[in-house]
């Protein structure tokens, strides 16, 4: 004999409600939030340094790393206010860490907040931080198979940002392949080919982010 219990019960990821509260908070303050996901060394901080002078006074950055405040200091040197979260062991940021950060880090007077997640293309894809969009950051030096190998990161991303394009002459990297694989997960996904070294693509990327922010407001 067997018996079936019909349930239809939703189970939430831990932190789901908190992320919703954060989203509400950011929205009420008119802040558009971008969560950057990419492997260690993919160029997330350098990209933010390149964006920094263009958004001085209106943007701030929350940095996530296991240890050190190196990235926070780099962002401050580039002219933006920044806060460092050290996750100690955790491979990703979660909503609780962001909420705790906001207890000491003021987000008054800004309309753009970047959150650089812990370097990792896997776990951060699963955690909502109250952001408006996630963007996936992949450098040309990591190998053009990465969008195919990390489909879930692509699926939750609103754009693929290819970094270090100035190095294209030196590495074998097929941008079309990356684009195709990313769009396999999200059709029409915008792809920005950028370099913090020579500045290519950075203005286009920022314009797209600001357009998304306007569209939300």
């Amino acid at each position, binding site marked *: *004999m*067997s*018996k*079936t*219990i*019909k*349930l*239809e*019960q*939703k*189970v*939430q*990821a*831990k932190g*789901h409600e908190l992320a919703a509260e954060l989203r509400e908070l950011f929205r009420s303050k008119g802040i558009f939030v971008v969560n950057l996901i990419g492997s260690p060394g993919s160029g997330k901080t350098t990209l933010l340094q390149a964006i920094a002078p263009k958004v001085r006074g209106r943007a701030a950055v929350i940095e996530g790393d296991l240890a050190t405040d190196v990235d926070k200091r780099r962002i401050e040197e580039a002219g933006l206010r920044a806060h460092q979260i050290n996750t100690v062991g955790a491979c990703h940021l979660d909503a609780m860490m962001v909420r705790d950060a906001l207890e000491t880090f003021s987000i008054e007077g800004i309309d753009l907040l970047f959150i650089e997640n812990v370097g990792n293309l896997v*776990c951060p*894809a*699963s*955690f*909502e931080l109250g952001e408006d969009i996630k963007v996936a950051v992949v450098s040309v030096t990591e190998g053009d198979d990465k969008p195919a190998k990390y489909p*879930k*990161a692509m*699926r*939750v991303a609103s754009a693929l940002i290819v970094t270090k394009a100035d190095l294209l002459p030196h590495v074998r990297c097929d941008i079309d392949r990356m684009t195709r694989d990313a769009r396999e997960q999200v059709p029409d996904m915008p792809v920005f080919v950028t370099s913090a070294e020579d500045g290519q693509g950075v203005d286009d990327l920022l314009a797209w982010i600001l357009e998304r922010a306007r569209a939300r407001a």
Partner: protein
Amino acid sequence: MHEMSFAEEVLDVVLREASAYPDARIGRVRVRVGALLAIEPASLRFSLEAISLDTPAEGAELEIIEEPLDGGAGDGALTIEEIELSE
């Protein structure tokens, strides 16, 4: 590895529901997972298997339906559809 925290929540619910039938074992659990959760089915299955040892859910089959992104509330949710008990 957030599959483990989902597995814990699923096991809680399943054991609570099944506690009304003290002689029953849990044969099968069916869940739907939203695309935004980025849950790896194999990892969810492994996590549940590991934590259900020595409970009435030990050895239960976990059926996972992966739902495509549709812009609705289901995208960010894991839904336990049904639990099948066997005597």
